[in-house]
Protein backbone atom coordinates (compact mmCIF):
# COMPACT_ATOMS: atom_id res chain seq x y z
CA UNK A 1 0.00 0.00 0.00
CA UNK A 2 2.71 2.42 0.93
CA UNK A 3 4.61 1.38 -2.13
CA UNK A 4 1.62 2.07 -4.29
CA UNK A 5 1.30 5.54 -2.88
CA UNK A 6 4.95 6.35 -3.32
CA UNK A 7 4.76 5.35 -6.93
CA UNK A 8 1.63 7.38 -7.38
CA UNK A 9 3.52 10.62 -7.07
CA UNK A 10 5.62 9.84 -10.11
CA UNK A 11 2.92 8.30 -12.21
CA UNK A 12 0.64 11.22 -11.46
CA UNK A 13 3.31 13.63 -12.58
CA UNK A 14 3.71 12.26 -16.07
CA UNK A 15 -0.01 11.82 -16.43
CA UNK A 16 -0.85 15.37 -15.57
CA UNK A 17 -0.32 16.83 -19.01
CA UNK A 18 -3.41 15.31 -20.57
CA UNK A 19 -5.79 15.66 -17.69
CA UNK A 20 -7.20 18.99 -18.70
CA UNK A 21 -10.29 19.04 -16.49
CA UNK A 22 -8.85 16.64 -13.96
CA UNK A 23 -7.22 16.77 -10.64
CA UNK A 24 -5.70 20.14 -9.74
CA UNK A 25 -6.46 19.75 -6.10
CA UNK A 26 -9.96 20.46 -4.96
CA UNK A 27 -10.61 22.63 -8.00
CA UNK A 28 -12.53 19.90 -9.81
CA UNK A 29 -15.85 21.67 -9.51
CA UNK A 30 -16.97 19.43 -6.70
CA UNK A 31 -19.94 20.42 -4.63
CA UNK A 32 -21.01 18.26 -1.69
CA UNK A 33 -24.14 16.30 -2.40
CA UNK A 34 -27.28 16.39 -0.28
CA UNK A 35 -26.36 12.88 0.87
CA UNK A 36 -23.05 14.06 2.27
CA UNK A 37 -24.61 17.06 3.98
CA UNK A 38 -27.22 14.85 5.57
CA UNK A 39 -24.51 12.46 6.78
CA UNK A 40 -22.52 15.29 8.25
CA UNK A 41 -25.59 16.68 9.98
CA UNK A 42 -26.21 13.26 11.48
CA UNK A 43 -22.58 12.94 12.64
CA UNK A 44 -22.65 16.39 14.19
CA UNK A 45 -25.86 15.55 16.03
CA UNK A 46 -24.25 12.34 17.25
CA UNK A 47 -21.17 14.20 18.41
CA UNK A 48 -23.30 16.74 20.25
CA UNK A 49 -25.25 14.00 21.94
CA UNK A 50 -22.05 12.18 22.91
CA UNK A 51 -20.67 15.38 24.45
CA UNK A 52 -23.88 15.96 26.35
CA UNK A 53 -23.89 12.39 27.70
CA UNK A 54 -20.25 12.66 28.71
CA UNK A 55 -20.86 15.92 30.52
CA UNK A 56 -23.92 14.56 32.30
CA UNK A 57 -22.27 11.35 33.42
CA UNK A 58 -19.22 13.29 34.61
CA UNK A 59 -21.43 15.58 36.64
CA UNK A 60 -23.34 12.68 38.19
CA UNK A 61 -20.12 10.85 39.06
CA UNK A 62 -18.63 13.98 40.62
CA UNK A 63 -21.74 14.62 42.72
CA UNK A 64 -21.88 11.01 43.91
CA UNK A 65 -18.19 11.01 44.84
CA UNK A 66 -18.59 14.29 46.65
CA UNK A 67 -21.59 13.07 48.63
CA UNK A 68 -19.87 9.81 49.55
CA UNK A 69 -16.80 11.63 50.86
CA UNK A 70 -18.65 14.44 52.59
CA UNK A 71 -21.16 12.17 54.29
CA UNK A 72 -18.41 9.98 55.74
CA UNK A 73 -18.64 10.04 59.56
CA UNK A 74 -15.11 11.35 60.03
CA UNK A 75 -15.25 13.94 57.29
CA UNK A 76 -15.16 17.03 59.52
CA UNK A 77 -12.12 15.75 61.35
CA UNK A 78 -10.40 14.65 58.15
CA UNK A 79 -11.04 18.01 56.58
CA UNK A 80 -9.30 19.77 59.42
CA UNK A 81 -6.28 17.48 59.39
CA UNK A 82 -5.78 17.07 55.64
CA UNK A 83 -7.41 20.04 53.94
CA UNK A 84 -6.63 23.04 56.04
CA UNK A 85 -6.32 26.14 53.89
CA UNK A 86 -4.05 28.00 56.25
CA UNK A 87 -1.49 25.23 56.49
CA UNK A 88 -1.69 24.77 52.74
CA UNK A 89 -0.80 28.42 52.21
CA UNK A 90 2.04 28.10 54.67
CA UNK A 91 3.38 24.89 53.13
CA UNK A 92 3.16 25.77 49.45
CA UNK A 93 6.18 28.11 49.15
CA UNK A 94 8.38 25.73 51.15
CA UNK A 95 7.23 22.75 49.13
CA UNK A 96 7.87 24.55 45.86
CA UNK A 97 11.31 25.51 47.08
CA UNK A 98 12.01 21.85 47.84
CA UNK A 99 10.51 20.83 44.52
CA UNK A 100 13.24 22.67 42.67
CA UNK A 101 15.65 20.05 44.04
CA UNK A 102 13.39 17.26 42.77
CA UNK A 103 13.20 18.84 39.34
CA UNK A 104 16.97 19.24 39.07
CA UNK A 105 17.52 15.67 40.21
CA UNK A 106 14.92 14.46 37.73
CA UNK A 107 16.49 16.30 34.81
CA UNK A 108 20.06 15.25 35.51
CA UNK A 109 19.31 11.69 36.59
CA UNK A 110 16.77 11.34 33.76
CA UNK A 111 19.36 12.14 31.10
CA UNK A 112 21.99 9.93 32.74
CA UNK A 113 19.52 7.08 33.11
CA UNK A 114 18.47 7.26 29.45
CA UNK A 115 22.06 7.25 28.23
CA UNK A 116 23.28 4.56 30.60
CA UNK A 117 20.18 2.43 30.09
CA UNK A 118 20.59 2.62 26.33
CA UNK A 119 24.27 1.65 26.55
CA UNK A 120 23.49 -1.33 28.78
CA UNK A 121 20.67 -2.44 26.50
CA UNK A 122 22.94 -2.24 23.47
CA UNK A 123 25.66 -4.12 25.34
CA UNK A 124 23.17 -6.88 26.08
CA UNK A 125 22.12 -7.24 22.46
CA UNK A 126 25.58 -7.18 20.89
CA UNK A 127 26.13 -10.31 18.85
CA UNK A 128 29.44 -12.13 18.54
CA UNK A 129 31.56 -14.15 20.97
CA UNK A 130 33.99 -11.28 21.59
CA UNK A 131 31.32 -9.38 23.44
CA UNK A 132 30.43 -12.21 25.78
CA UNK A 133 31.98 -10.58 28.87
CA UNK A 134 30.21 -7.32 28.09
CA UNK A 135 26.89 -9.09 27.67
CA UNK A 136 27.41 -10.99 30.90
CA UNK A 137 28.34 -7.83 32.79
CA UNK A 138 25.34 -5.96 31.48
CA UNK A 139 23.06 -8.84 32.40
CA UNK A 140 24.56 -9.06 35.89
CA UNK A 141 24.15 -5.31 36.33
CA UNK A 142 20.47 -5.30 35.43
CA UNK A 143 19.78 -8.41 37.50
CA UNK A 144 21.46 -6.91 40.55
CA UNK A 145 20.14 -3.37 40.48
CA UNK A 146 16.62 -4.29 39.49
CA UNK A 147 16.46 -6.67 42.39
CA UNK A 148 18.07 -4.42 44.99
CA UNK A 149 15.43 -2.32 46.79
CA UNK A 150 15.97 1.34 45.96
CA UNK A 151 15.91 2.38 49.61
CA UNK A 152 18.70 -0.05 50.52
CA UNK A 153 20.69 1.03 47.49
CA UNK A 154 20.29 4.66 48.59
CA UNK A 155 21.38 3.96 52.13
CA UNK A 156 24.41 2.02 51.01
CA UNK A 157 25.51 4.78 48.66
CA UNK A 158 24.56 7.80 50.76
CA UNK A 159 25.94 6.50 54.07
CA UNK A 160 28.41 3.88 52.88
CA UNK A 161 30.45 5.92 50.42
CA UNK A 162 31.25 8.78 52.87
CA UNK A 163 32.17 6.16 55.48
CA UNK A 164 34.97 5.00 53.21
CA UNK A 165 36.59 8.44 53.64
CA UNK A 166 37.93 8.35 50.14
CA UNK A 167 39.91 11.38 48.97
CA UNK A 168 38.16 13.44 46.33
CA UNK A 169 34.87 11.58 46.51
CA UNK A 170 31.91 13.72 47.36
CA UNK A 171 29.94 13.33 50.58
CA UNK A 172 27.09 15.52 49.32
CA UNK A 173 23.92 13.52 49.99
CA UNK A 174 22.22 14.98 46.93
CA UNK A 175 24.97 13.89 44.55
CA UNK A 176 25.27 10.48 46.16
CA UNK A 177 21.51 10.04 46.23
CA UNK A 178 21.35 10.99 42.56
CA UNK A 179 24.02 8.42 41.80
CA UNK A 180 22.04 5.72 43.59
CA UNK A 181 18.87 6.65 41.70
CA UNK A 182 20.78 6.52 38.43
CA UNK A 183 22.17 3.08 39.23
CA UNK A 184 18.75 1.59 39.93
CA UNK A 185 16.82 3.32 37.19
CA UNK A 186 19.42 2.58 34.51
CA UNK A 187 18.75 -1.08 35.14
CA UNK A 188 15.00 -0.61 34.67
CA UNK A 189 15.38 1.54 31.59
CA UNK A 190 17.94 -0.82 30.06
CA UNK A 191 15.33 -3.56 30.16
CA UNK A 192 12.75 -1.30 28.58
CA UNK A 193 15.15 -0.49 25.74
CA UNK A 194 16.12 -4.12 25.34
CA UNK A 195 12.48 -5.16 25.07
CA UNK A 196 12.06 -2.48 22.42
CA UNK A 197 15.09 -3.60 20.45
CA UNK A 198 13.93 -7.20 20.49
CA UNK A 199 10.40 -6.25 19.47
CA UNK A 200 11.56 -4.90 16.12
CA UNK A 201 10.82 -7.54 13.53
CA UNK A 202 13.93 -9.44 12.37
CA UNK A 203 13.05 -8.62 8.77
CA UNK A 204 13.94 -4.99 9.53
CA UNK A 205 17.44 -5.93 10.58
CA UNK A 206 17.68 -8.23 7.58
CA UNK A 207 16.64 -5.42 5.23
CA UNK A 208 19.17 -3.05 6.76
CA UNK A 209 22.00 -5.59 6.63
CA UNK A 210 21.12 -6.46 3.06
CA UNK A 211 21.68 -2.82 2.14
CA UNK A 212 25.21 -3.23 3.37
CA UNK A 213 24.76 -1.46 6.69
CA UNK A 214 26.97 -2.87 9.41
CA UNK A 215 25.40 -4.33 12.50
CA UNK A 216 26.08 -1.09 14.32
CA UNK A 217 24.58 1.04 11.56
CA UNK A 218 21.54 -1.20 11.35
CA UNK A 219 21.05 -0.75 15.06
CA UNK A 220 21.60 2.98 14.93
CA UNK A 221 19.51 3.90 11.88
CA UNK A 222 16.85 1.19 11.65
CA UNK A 223 16.34 -0.77 14.86
CA UNK A 224 16.80 1.82 17.59
CA UNK A 225 14.53 4.49 16.08
CA UNK A 226 11.70 1.97 15.91
CA UNK A 227 12.50 0.50 19.31
CA UNK A 228 12.62 3.85 21.08
CA UNK A 229 9.42 5.02 19.44
CA UNK A 230 7.61 1.93 20.69
CA UNK A 231 9.01 2.24 24.20
CA UNK A 232 8.08 5.87 24.79
CA UNK A 233 5.12 5.05 27.08
CA UNK A 234 7.04 2.63 29.34
CA UNK A 235 10.01 5.00 29.39
CA UNK A 236 7.76 7.80 30.48
CA UNK A 237 6.42 5.51 33.16
CA UNK A 238 9.91 5.02 34.52
CA UNK A 239 10.68 8.73 34.34
CA UNK A 240 7.56 9.60 36.31
CA UNK A 241 8.47 6.95 38.82
CA UNK A 242 11.98 8.39 39.01
CA UNK A 243 10.54 11.83 39.58
CA UNK A 244 8.68 10.60 42.64
CA UNK A 245 11.61 8.62 43.92
CA UNK A 246 13.84 11.70 43.85
CA UNK A 247 12.10 12.44 47.14
CA UNK A 248 13.94 9.52 48.74
CA UNK A 249 17.17 11.49 48.50
CA UNK A 250 15.95 13.27 51.63
CA UNK A 251 17.08 10.31 53.76
CA UNK A 252 20.56 11.77 53.55
CA UNK A 253 19.35 15.11 54.89
CA UNK A 254 18.59 16.99 51.66
CA UNK A 255 15.41 19.04 51.76
CA UNK A 256 13.18 18.30 48.80
CA UNK A 257 9.44 18.84 48.41
CA UNK A 258 8.48 15.78 50.46
CA UNK A 259 10.92 16.58 53.24
CA UNK A 260 9.79 20.22 53.31
CA UNK A 261 6.18 19.19 53.80
CA UNK A 262 7.28 16.64 56.36
CA UNK A 263 9.01 19.31 58.45
CA UNK A 264 5.87 21.44 58.61
CA UNK A 265 3.66 18.43 59.25
CA UNK A 266 5.81 17.23 62.13
CA UNK A 267 5.75 20.66 63.72
CA UNK A 268 2.07 21.37 63.33
CA UNK A 269 0.66 17.84 63.54
CA UNK A 270 -1.43 18.68 60.49
CA UNK A 271 -1.17 16.58 57.33
CA UNK A 272 -2.20 19.25 54.84
CA UNK A 273 1.42 19.84 53.69
CA UNK A 274 1.59 16.23 52.49
CA UNK A 275 -1.48 16.79 50.36
CA UNK A 276 0.10 19.95 48.95
CA UNK A 277 3.34 18.10 48.12
CA UNK A 278 1.38 15.23 46.54
CA UNK A 279 -0.64 17.55 44.34
CA UNK A 280 2.47 19.41 43.26
CA UNK A 281 4.01 16.14 42.06
CA UNK A 282 0.84 15.23 40.20
CA UNK A 283 0.79 18.67 38.60
CA UNK A 284 4.35 18.10 37.44
CA UNK A 285 3.55 14.73 35.87
CA UNK A 286 0.46 15.63 33.91
CA UNK A 287 2.03 18.07 31.43
CA UNK A 288 4.85 15.58 30.83
CA UNK A 289 2.40 12.81 30.01
CA UNK A 290 0.28 15.01 27.77
CA UNK A 291 3.37 16.21 25.95
CA UNK A 292 4.62 12.71 25.14
CA UNK A 293 1.11 11.62 24.15
CA UNK A 294 1.01 14.54 21.76
CA UNK A 295 4.43 13.76 20.32
CA UNK A 296 3.68 10.08 19.74
CA UNK A 297 0.25 10.83 18.29
CA UNK A 298 1.84 13.25 15.86
CA UNK A 299 4.43 10.69 14.81
CA UNK A 300 1.67 8.15 14.27
CA UNK A 301 -0.33 10.53 12.12
CA UNK A 302 2.62 11.21 9.87
CA UNK A 303 3.25 7.56 9.26
CA UNK A 304 -0.07 5.80 9.34
CA UNK A 305 -1.94 4.72 6.28
CA UNK A 306 -5.07 6.39 7.54
CA UNK A 307 -8.49 4.87 7.62
CA UNK A 308 -11.14 4.64 10.25
CA UNK A 309 -9.64 1.82 12.29
Amino acid at each position, binding site marked *: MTVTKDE*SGQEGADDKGD*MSAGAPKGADGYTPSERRLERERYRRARARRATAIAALSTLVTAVVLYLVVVSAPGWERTKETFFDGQYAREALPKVLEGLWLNVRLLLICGVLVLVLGMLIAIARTLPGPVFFPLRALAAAYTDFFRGLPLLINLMIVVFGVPALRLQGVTVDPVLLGGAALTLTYSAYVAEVFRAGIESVHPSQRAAARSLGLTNRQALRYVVLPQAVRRQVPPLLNDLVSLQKDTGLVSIGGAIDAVRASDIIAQRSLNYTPYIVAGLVFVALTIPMTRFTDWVTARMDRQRAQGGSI
Partner: protein
Amino acid sequence: MSDGPVLRMESVRKTFGDSVVLRDVDLEVAPHTVTALIGASGSGKSTLLRCANLLEEIDDGAIWLDGEEITDPRADHDAVRRRIGVVFQAYNLFPHMTVLDNITLAPRRVHGVSRAEAEERARELLERLGLGGKAGAYPDRLSGGQQQRVAIVRALAVRPRLLLLDEITAALDPELVGEVLTVVRDLKEDEGMTMVLATHEMGFARDVADQVCFLDGGVVLERGTADQVFGDPQQERTRRFLRRIVEAGRL
Protein backbone atom coordinates in the same frame (compact mmCIF):
# COMPACT_ATOMS: atom_id res chain seq x y z
CA MET B 1 -30.94 -11.12 -2.66
CA SER B 2 -29.20 -12.94 -5.45
CA ASP B 3 -30.79 -10.83 -8.17
CA GLY B 4 -29.49 -7.38 -7.29
CA PRO B 5 -25.83 -6.46 -7.35
CA VAL B 6 -23.75 -7.66 -4.43
CA LEU B 7 -21.79 -4.44 -4.35
CA ARG B 8 -22.92 -1.12 -5.71
CA MET B 9 -21.13 2.20 -5.57
CA GLU B 10 -22.61 5.51 -6.54
CA SER B 11 -20.69 8.77 -7.00
CA VAL B 12 -18.08 7.73 -4.48
CA ARG B 13 -15.58 10.45 -3.63
CA LYS B 14 -12.53 10.03 -1.47
CA THR B 15 -9.81 12.57 -0.79
CA PHE B 16 -6.69 12.48 1.31
CA GLY B 17 -5.98 16.02 2.34
CA ASP B 18 -5.75 17.94 -0.91
CA SER B 19 -5.42 14.99 -3.25
CA VAL B 20 -8.60 13.65 -4.76
CA VAL B 21 -8.12 9.92 -5.17
CA LEU B 22 -11.65 8.94 -6.13
CA ARG B 23 -13.66 11.71 -7.74
CA ASP B 24 -16.89 10.15 -8.88
CA VAL B 25 -16.87 6.38 -8.98
CA ASP B 26 -19.84 4.23 -9.95
CA LEU B 27 -19.60 0.47 -9.83
CA GLU B 28 -21.90 -2.52 -9.86
CA VAL B 29 -20.82 -6.05 -9.10
CA ALA B 30 -23.32 -8.80 -9.90
CA PRO B 31 -23.42 -12.01 -7.86
CA HIS B 32 -20.97 -14.75 -8.83
CA THR B 33 -18.99 -12.47 -11.08
CA VAL B 34 -15.43 -11.26 -10.98
CA THR B 35 -14.66 -7.58 -11.43
CA ALA B 36 -11.12 -6.53 -12.18
CA LEU B 37 -9.99 -3.01 -11.42
CA ILE B 38 -7.09 -1.94 -13.59
CA GLY B 39 -5.25 1.33 -13.89
CA ALA B 40 -1.93 2.97 -13.19
CA SER B 41 -0.42 2.92 -9.74
CA GLY B 42 -2.13 5.55 -7.67
CA SER B 43 -5.31 5.52 -9.73
CA GLY B 44 -7.25 4.58 -6.61
CA LYS B 45 -7.77 0.83 -7.04
CA SER B 46 -6.66 -0.01 -3.53
CA THR B 47 -8.48 2.94 -2.06
CA LEU B 48 -11.68 1.82 -3.73
CA LEU B 49 -11.37 -1.63 -2.17
CA ARG B 50 -10.58 -0.14 1.22
CA CYS B 51 -13.67 2.05 0.95
CA ALA B 52 -15.80 -0.98 0.14
CA ASN B 53 -14.59 -2.64 3.32
CA LEU B 54 -15.11 0.58 5.31
CA LEU B 55 -11.43 0.77 6.12
CA GLU B 56 -11.64 4.27 4.68
CA GLU B 57 -14.51 6.63 5.26
CA ILE B 58 -15.73 8.02 1.97
CA ASP B 59 -16.30 11.75 1.56
CA ASP B 60 -19.34 11.56 -0.62
CA GLY B 61 -21.51 9.12 -2.49
CA ALA B 62 -22.78 5.81 -1.18
CA ILE B 63 -21.95 2.12 -1.20
CA TRP B 64 -24.43 -0.73 -0.93
CA LEU B 65 -23.79 -4.34 0.00
CA ASP B 66 -26.67 -6.59 -0.99
CA GLY B 67 -28.93 -3.56 -1.25
CA GLU B 68 -28.10 -2.26 2.20
CA GLU B 69 -26.31 1.05 2.41
CA ILE B 70 -23.11 0.39 4.33
CA THR B 71 -21.86 3.98 4.21
CA ASP B 72 -24.81 5.13 6.26
CA PRO B 73 -23.30 6.40 9.52
CA ARG B 74 -25.89 4.29 11.34
CA ALA B 75 -24.65 1.07 9.73
CA ASP B 76 -22.80 -1.46 11.89
CA HIS B 77 -19.29 -1.58 10.44
CA ASP B 78 -18.41 -4.88 12.04
CA ALA B 79 -21.53 -6.54 10.69
CA VAL B 80 -20.65 -5.29 7.21
CA ARG B 81 -17.08 -6.52 7.43
CA ARG B 82 -18.25 -9.93 8.59
CA ARG B 83 -19.73 -10.40 5.13
CA ILE B 84 -16.68 -9.23 3.22
CA GLY B 85 -13.37 -11.03 2.95
CA VAL B 86 -10.23 -9.05 2.18
CA VAL B 87 -6.84 -10.23 1.00
CA PHE B 88 -4.16 -7.59 1.28
CA GLN B 89 -1.20 -7.00 -0.98
CA ALA B 90 1.23 -7.47 1.92
CA TYR B 91 -0.69 -10.50 3.30
CA ASN B 92 -1.09 -8.91 6.75
CA LEU B 93 -0.96 -12.27 8.49
CA PHE B 94 -0.60 -12.20 12.26
CA PRO B 95 3.02 -13.17 12.89
CA HIS B 96 2.41 -14.32 16.46
CA MET B 97 -0.09 -17.00 15.43
CA THR B 98 0.30 -20.25 13.58
CA VAL B 99 -1.29 -20.60 10.17
CA LEU B 100 -4.17 -22.50 11.70
CA ASP B 101 -4.75 -19.87 14.38
CA ASN B 102 -4.60 -17.10 11.79
CA ILE B 103 -7.36 -18.81 9.87
CA THR B 104 -9.58 -19.86 12.74
CA LEU B 105 -9.40 -16.58 14.66
CA ALA B 106 -12.37 -14.91 12.98
CA PRO B 107 -14.58 -18.01 12.66
CA ARG B 108 -14.12 -18.77 16.34
CA ARG B 109 -14.11 -15.32 17.91
CA VAL B 110 -16.43 -13.45 15.57
CA HIS B 111 -18.74 -16.10 14.19
CA GLY B 112 -18.85 -18.33 17.24
CA VAL B 113 -17.87 -21.50 15.39
CA SER B 114 -16.50 -24.27 17.60
CA ARG B 115 -12.77 -24.87 17.51
CA ALA B 116 -13.15 -28.36 16.04
CA GLU B 117 -15.42 -27.16 13.27
CA ALA B 118 -13.31 -24.12 12.47
CA GLU B 119 -10.13 -26.17 12.32
CA GLU B 120 -11.74 -28.78 10.14
CA ARG B 121 -12.82 -26.16 7.64
CA ALA B 122 -9.41 -24.49 7.82
CA ARG B 123 -7.58 -27.76 7.15
CA GLU B 124 -9.91 -28.54 4.29
CA LEU B 125 -9.23 -25.16 2.68
CA LEU B 126 -5.49 -25.43 3.31
CA GLU B 127 -5.51 -28.85 1.71
CA ARG B 128 -7.31 -27.50 -1.31
CA LEU B 129 -4.80 -24.71 -1.73
CA GLY B 130 -1.90 -27.10 -1.40
CA LEU B 131 -0.89 -26.06 2.09
CA GLY B 132 -1.97 -29.19 3.95
CA GLY B 133 1.32 -29.55 5.80
CA LYS B 134 1.61 -25.96 6.94
CA ALA B 135 -1.18 -25.68 9.50
CA GLY B 136 1.20 -25.55 12.46
CA ALA B 137 3.80 -23.30 10.87
CA TYR B 138 4.25 -19.62 11.65
CA PRO B 139 3.79 -17.11 8.79
CA ASP B 140 7.40 -15.93 8.85
CA ARG B 141 8.52 -19.47 8.01
CA LEU B 142 6.50 -19.56 4.77
CA SER B 143 7.34 -18.33 1.30
CA GLY B 144 5.52 -15.32 -0.12
CA GLY B 145 3.22 -17.44 -2.25
CA GLN B 146 2.39 -19.64 0.69
CA GLN B 147 1.71 -16.66 2.90
CA GLN B 148 -0.57 -15.14 0.30
CA ARG B 149 -2.49 -18.39 -0.03
CA VAL B 150 -2.86 -18.54 3.75
CA ALA B 151 -4.22 -14.99 3.61
CA ILE B 152 -6.75 -16.13 1.01
CA VAL B 153 -7.76 -19.07 3.20
CA ARG B 154 -8.11 -16.72 6.14
CA ALA B 155 -10.46 -14.52 4.14
CA LEU B 156 -12.43 -17.51 2.87
CA ALA B 157 -12.77 -19.23 6.23
CA VAL B 158 -15.71 -17.04 7.22
CA ARG B 159 -17.59 -17.82 3.97
CA PRO B 160 -17.79 -14.19 2.86
CA ARG B 161 -20.43 -12.89 0.52
CA LEU B 162 -17.83 -10.84 -1.30
CA LEU B 163 -14.09 -11.18 -1.59
CA LEU B 164 -11.86 -8.16 -2.14
CA LEU B 165 -8.38 -8.87 -3.46
CA ASP B 166 -5.92 -5.99 -3.38
CA GLU B 167 -3.08 -6.61 -5.83
CA ILE B 168 -2.51 -9.94 -4.21
CA THR B 169 0.26 -10.93 -6.57
CA ALA B 170 2.18 -7.66 -6.54
CA ALA B 171 4.70 -8.88 -3.99
CA LEU B 172 5.23 -12.30 -5.56
CA ASP B 173 7.68 -13.60 -8.10
CA PRO B 174 6.27 -14.93 -11.38
CA GLU B 175 6.26 -18.59 -10.38
CA LEU B 176 4.29 -17.84 -7.24
CA VAL B 177 1.96 -15.53 -9.13
CA GLY B 178 0.68 -18.49 -11.12
CA GLU B 179 0.13 -20.44 -7.94
CA VAL B 180 -2.00 -17.72 -6.37
CA LEU B 181 -3.93 -16.87 -9.54
CA THR B 182 -4.91 -20.50 -9.98
CA VAL B 183 -6.48 -20.34 -6.56
CA VAL B 184 -8.53 -17.30 -7.54
CA ARG B 185 -9.62 -18.89 -10.81
CA ASP B 186 -10.73 -22.03 -8.95
CA LEU B 187 -12.67 -19.94 -6.48
CA LYS B 188 -14.62 -18.44 -9.33
CA GLU B 189 -15.29 -21.70 -11.12
CA ASP B 190 -15.91 -24.00 -8.15
CA GLU B 191 -17.67 -21.72 -5.73
CA GLY B 192 -18.99 -18.88 -7.84
CA MET B 193 -17.39 -16.52 -5.37
CA THR B 194 -18.14 -12.85 -6.04
CA MET B 195 -14.84 -11.04 -6.22
CA VAL B 196 -13.46 -7.60 -6.85
CA LEU B 197 -9.76 -7.53 -7.52
CA ALA B 198 -7.31 -4.77 -8.10
CA THR B 199 -4.55 -6.10 -10.29
CA HIS B 200 -1.61 -5.39 -12.52
CA GLU B 201 -1.84 -8.85 -14.06
CA MET B 202 -3.63 -7.90 -17.28
CA GLY B 203 -3.45 -11.40 -18.72
CA PHE B 204 -5.10 -12.74 -15.64
CA ALA B 205 -7.71 -9.98 -15.58
CA ARG B 206 -8.61 -10.74 -19.19
CA ASP B 207 -8.80 -14.40 -18.41
CA VAL B 208 -10.86 -14.42 -15.26
CA ALA B 209 -12.84 -11.18 -15.12
CA ASP B 210 -16.46 -10.83 -16.18
CA GLN B 211 -16.18 -7.08 -15.87
CA VAL B 212 -13.10 -4.93 -16.28
CA CYS B 213 -13.00 -1.37 -14.98
CA PHE B 214 -10.26 1.05 -15.95
CA LEU B 215 -9.71 3.66 -13.27
CA ASP B 216 -8.22 6.95 -14.24
CA GLY B 217 -8.35 10.46 -12.83
CA GLY B 218 -10.58 9.32 -9.99
CA VAL B 219 -13.35 7.88 -12.16
CA VAL B 220 -14.09 4.59 -13.87
CA LEU B 221 -13.11 5.83 -17.30
CA GLU B 222 -14.01 2.68 -19.14
CA ARG B 223 -15.82 -0.49 -18.25
CA GLY B 224 -17.05 -3.57 -20.04
CA THR B 225 -16.32 -7.21 -20.56
CA ALA B 226 -12.68 -8.20 -20.75
CA ASP B 227 -12.99 -8.50 -24.53
CA GLN B 228 -14.42 -5.01 -24.86
CA VAL B 229 -11.88 -3.25 -22.67
CA PHE B 230 -8.80 -5.14 -23.80
CA GLY B 231 -9.92 -5.83 -27.36
CA ASP B 232 -11.59 -2.62 -28.37
CA PRO B 233 -11.00 0.16 -25.85
CA GLN B 234 -13.06 3.28 -26.59
CA GLN B 235 -11.10 5.84 -24.63
CA GLU B 236 -7.80 7.25 -25.70
CA ARG B 237 -6.42 7.02 -22.15
CA THR B 238 -7.32 3.35 -21.92
CA ARG B 239 -5.61 2.67 -25.21
CA ARG B 240 -2.47 4.44 -24.06
CA PHE B 241 -2.47 2.59 -20.76
CA LEU B 242 -2.85 -0.76 -22.48
CA ARG B 243 -0.18 0.10 -25.01
CA ARG B 244 2.24 0.82 -22.21
CA ILE B 245 1.34 -2.50 -20.60
CA VAL B 246 1.91 -4.35 -23.85
CA GLU B 247 5.23 -2.61 -24.33
CA ALA B 248 6.21 -3.71 -20.86
CA GLY B 249 5.40 -7.25 -21.94
CA ARG B 250 2.69 -7.70 -19.36
CA LEU B 251 -0.19 -8.62 -21.65
